[in-house]
C-alpha cells in the first residue's frame, strides 16, 4: 500500500500566488520528511526537509509545515514563479532503517506567467 499519500496530482497557479501540496503518512516511526523537486528529464533533487521535532521549516520561498498528531506535512511555495514549474515529491523515512525513502505519487506544478 502507499505509505505516503500526496495531493493534489496536479496544480496550476498564477505567478506570484501560493502553491500548496499536501502529504499524509501512516507509519509513526518515520522521522525524516524531505521534499524533492524534479524537472523533466532530470533526477529528483532535494528541495527542503524537516524532522518531526519542529512544526515548520522555511528556506527562502519554500516552507514545510508539519503536523505530527495528524501525521501530515505540506509544502508551501510563496510567490510562485514560472521556474518553479516541476514535479514535486514528498517522502518519508525512518533513518535507522538505512534511509529507505517512501515517496508520494508526485504533484505536477505549473506556474502561469
Amino acid at each position, binding site marked *: 500500500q502507499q505509505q505516503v499519500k*500526496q495531493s493534489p*496530482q496536479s496544480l496550476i497557479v498564477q505567478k506570484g500566488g501560493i502553491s500548496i501540496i499536501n502529504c499524509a503518512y501512516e507509519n509513526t516511526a518515520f522521522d*525524516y520528511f*524531505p521534499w524533492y523537486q524534479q524537472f523533466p*528529464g*532530470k*533526477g*529528483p*533533487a*532535494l528541495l527542503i*526537509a524537516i524532522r518531526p521535532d519542529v512544526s515548520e521549516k522555511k528556506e527562502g520561498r519554500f516552507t514545510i509545515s508539519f503536523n505530527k498528531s495528524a501525521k501530515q506535512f505540506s509544502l508551501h511555495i510563496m510567490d510562485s514563479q514560472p521556474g518553479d514549474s516541476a514535479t514535486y*515529491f514528498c517522502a518519508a*523515512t525512518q*533513518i535507522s532503517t*538505512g*534511509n*529507505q*525513502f*517512501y*515517496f*508520494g*505519487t*508526485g504533484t505536477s506544478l505549473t506556474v502561469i506567467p
Partner: protein
Amino acid sequence: NAGVTQTPKFRILKIGQSMTLQCAQDMNHNYMYWYRQDPGMGLKLIYYSVGAGITDKGEVPNGYNVSRSTTEDFPLRLELAAPSQTSVYFCASSYSQGPYEQYFGPGTRLTVT
C-alpha cells in the same frame, strides 16, 4: 565531482533479454539505492545497499538483482526482461550519517517490447 552517474541513458530491450544498468558515485557515500519511476506512481525502491557487500530488497525487487562489490558502484541487473519493467530507473546515494539527503543520478529510460 561527477556525483551520481548512470549508463546507459536510454535502452530498448526485447522481452526475455537481460541487461545491467550501471550506477557509480564519487562522493564516498555508504548508502546506495535503485528506484523505478512510473507515471503517476512516484518512485518505488527496488534494492538498496548500506555498504560494500551488503544489499537488501526494497518495495519492488521482483525481476531484479543487485551487487555491491565496491563503495562506488551499484549495478542493477534485469534478467528475462518483461514489458512491466518498462520504466525510468534512478540510482541514488547518501551518507550513512546526517545529512540524509539522497543524491540522484540522471536516470535510465528503459523500454521492453
